[in-house]
C-alpha cells in the first residue's frame, strides 16, 4: 500500500473477483504442497521411472520447442506480413490445436502418421518408425504447442509493424538481411515468450501423447503420463511428481521472464 501507483480510478470491486481468480489458481497448488509427504519426497521422485520420465519430458519438450521455432517463425511471418485469399481460414486452422482436446489431436496424428494412416505408407518407405517412438512424443508435443508460438509471435510482429522493415529495405537490405538484422531482434521478446509457452505446453502434454505415442518407460512415458500412471497405485508418488512438474514449469517461466525484461 505504501508504493505509489500510476494508475488511478480502478474500481475497487475489481479486486474481489481478481483475488478470487488468483486464489482459484493458487489454492490447489497449495493444497498439493500440503499433501506432499516431505519425508519420502526425495525417494519418491528419484526412482528410476520418475527420473526417466523427467529427463524424457525435458528432452522431448526441448526438441518440440525447437521444432516449433523452426516451423512457427516462418508461419507467423507469412500470417503477419502477407495477405492472400483464405488467409483468415488458414489462421483459424493453424490455431485449432489451441482449442482442440489433445486426445483429438492424438487421434488426428494417428490417422496421419500411424502405420495405417494417410502418410503411414510414405513414412514406412522412408524407413521411419514413428509409432511408439520418442519421435512420436515430440510430434504430439509440437502439434499442441505450435499454435502458442505462432500466436504470440504473430502478435509481436503486428505490434512491431512493418515500418522498420520498410526503412531497412530502402537502406539496401535484402529481405533475408531485414529478417535477420531488423525483424528478428525487434520481435525477440515475443519469440522468447512464445517459445517458453510452447515449452510449457509441451511439458504438460498428455492426451495427444498417450493416444499417439503410447507409454513406455524411458521411450514415450513422459512425466505427465508417469504421474497419471502412479496415481493408480501410489498417490504419494503422483503428488511428489506433480510438484516436480510444477517446479520445472515455474523455473522455466521465471527464467524467461527475467530474460525477456532486461
Amino acid at each position, binding site marked *: 500500500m505504501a508504493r505509489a501507483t500510476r494508475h488511478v480510478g480502478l474500481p475497487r470491486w475489481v479486486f474481489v473477483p481478481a483475488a478470487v481468480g488468483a486464489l482459484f489458481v493458487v489454492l490447489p497448488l497449495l493444497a498439493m504442497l500440503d499433501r506432499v509427504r516431505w519425508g519420502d519426497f526425495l525417494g519418491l521422485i528419484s526412482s528410476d521411472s520418475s527420473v526417466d520420465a523427467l529427463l524424457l519430458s525435458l528432452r522431448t519438450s526441448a526438441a518440440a520447442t525447437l521444432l516449433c521455432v523452426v516451423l512457427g517463425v516462418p508461419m507467423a511471418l507469412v500470417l503477419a506480413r502477407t495477405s492472400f485469399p483464405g488467409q483468415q481460414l488458414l489462421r483459424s486452422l493453424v490455431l485449432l490445436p489451441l482449442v482442440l482436446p489433445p486426445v483429438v489431436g492424438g487421434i488426428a496424428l494417428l490417422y496421419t502418421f500411424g502405420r495405417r494412416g494417410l502418410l503411414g505408407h510414405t513414412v514406412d518407405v522412408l524407413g521411419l518408425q514413428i509409432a511408439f517412438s520418442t519421435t512420436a512424443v515430440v510430434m504430439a508435443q509440437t502439434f499442441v504447442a505450435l499454435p502458442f508460438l505462432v500466436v504470440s509471435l504473430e502478435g509481436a510482429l503486428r505490434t512491431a509493424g512493418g*515500418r*522498420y522493415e*520498410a*526503412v*531497412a*529495405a*530502402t*537502406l*539496401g*537490405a*535484402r*529481405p533475408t*538481411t*531485414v529478417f535477420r*538484422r*531488423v525483424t528478428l*531482434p*525487434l520481435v*525477440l521478446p515475443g519469440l522468447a515468450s512464445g517459445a517458453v509457452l510452447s515449452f510449457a505446453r509441451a511439458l504438460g502434454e498428455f492426451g495427444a501423447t498417450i493416444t499417439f505415442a503410447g507409454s513406455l518407460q524411458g521411450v514415450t512415458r513422459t512425466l505427465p503420463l508417469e504421474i497419471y500412471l502412479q496415481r493408480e497405485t501410489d498417490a504419494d508418488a503422483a503428488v511428489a511428481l506433480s510438484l516436480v512438474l510444477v517446479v520445472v514449469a515455474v523455473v522455466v517461466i521465471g527464467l524467461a521472464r527475467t530474460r525477456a525484461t532486461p
Partner: protein
Amino acid sequence: MSLEVRATVAERRFDVALRVGEGEVVAVLGQNGSGKSTALSVIAGLLRPDSGSATLDGRVLFDVGGAGRSGVWVPPHDRGVALLAQEPLLFPHLSALDNVAFGPRSSGRSRREARAAGERWLHEVGASEYAGRHPGRLSGGQAQRVAVARALAAEPRLLLLDEPMSALDIDVAPAVRQMLRRVLAGRAAVIVTHDILDALLLADRIVVLEDGRVVEEGPTAQVVGRPRSPFAARIAGLNMVRGTRDGDGVRGPDGVRVEGLADEAVPDGEPAVAVFRPSAVGVYRRPPGGSPRNVLDVTITELEPVGEQIRVRTAGLSADVTAAAVAELDLAPGTRVVFTVKASEVTVYRA
C-alpha cells in the same frame, strides 16, 4: 534527368507524373490525403502502382500495368532510393553508429568499413557524440539527425524525405532544417512537406498535389511568388481569387469581381487569378466611400495572431490588422464585415 516517374493507383485516385533533375531537390506540397506519401511509397517500391513506370539515372525501377509494359519491378532494397520518414524509426536494438552503418553493411561492406562510413556521416550531421547511444536515449532532434545520417550513408541515388521536420519540437526544427539544407545541396531528393519554410530553404522546385493530381509545379520562387493553386497561395500566405479574366480584373465563380493590375497578357474569358497580400486588405464595418477599391462582403470565421498583427480569416480570404483595430471594430467569428483592397495592390495573371 535523375528521376522520372509516372504512376496511377486507382484505389487512392492517384495519377501523378514527377521529375527530379540532376542534383535537384523537389518539394511535394499538398494537403493531407492529396497523395504526397503515396508518391514516395511508389518511388521507394513499398507500394505497387496499378500502372506506370519509373527510371532513376537511366535505370528502370518499374514498368508495370497494361500491355506493352515490360513488367519490371525492382524491389526496394535494389533501387538506390533511401527513405527518411516523419519519425526517425531508428532500429531500437542498434546503437546510433550501428544504425548509420546499417546501409553500408547491407550493401556488403566489411564491418570496419561500414563503421568508418557511419562515423563519417554522423560527423556530417553533427551527431558524432551520440555514436554509442541507443535510440531510446536520444532526443527527437538527435534521433532525426542520426536518421538523416543513416539514409545518406546508404549512398542513395535519390533521397526521399517524408515530412522530416513534422515530428520535431519547434525549437529543434530550425537546426535540423539547416543541417538538411547543407547535406541536400547538390543531391537528388524529393521532400514531402506542408511547411513552406521547408520548400523555401530546401527545394529548388515545388510540385503541388491535390486529390492525387499535380495542380501546379515550378521553381520555388515562382510558385511562392506567383501561386496558381489555392493551396500554394495559402502556404505562401497570399489571398487568391480564381476565375476568368474580365477587363482589368478577375471574375470569380460566385460573381465577385476583383480589379487589379495585369502584368501579362491574358485574353478576356481565360482562366486567371487575382493575388494580394493580407496586409494590403482593409477591414470595415460598412463600405467606405471615396477612392476606387475592391469591396468584398465577407463573414469572419477565425481570428489568429500572426506576429504583431491579427489575421482575420474568412472562407477564402484573409486580412492582417492591428489588435487595436480588432478591438475598435469589435471583430469576432461570425461578424459580417467588408474587405477592401486597392486595385494597385492586386496582381492578376494566368492561372
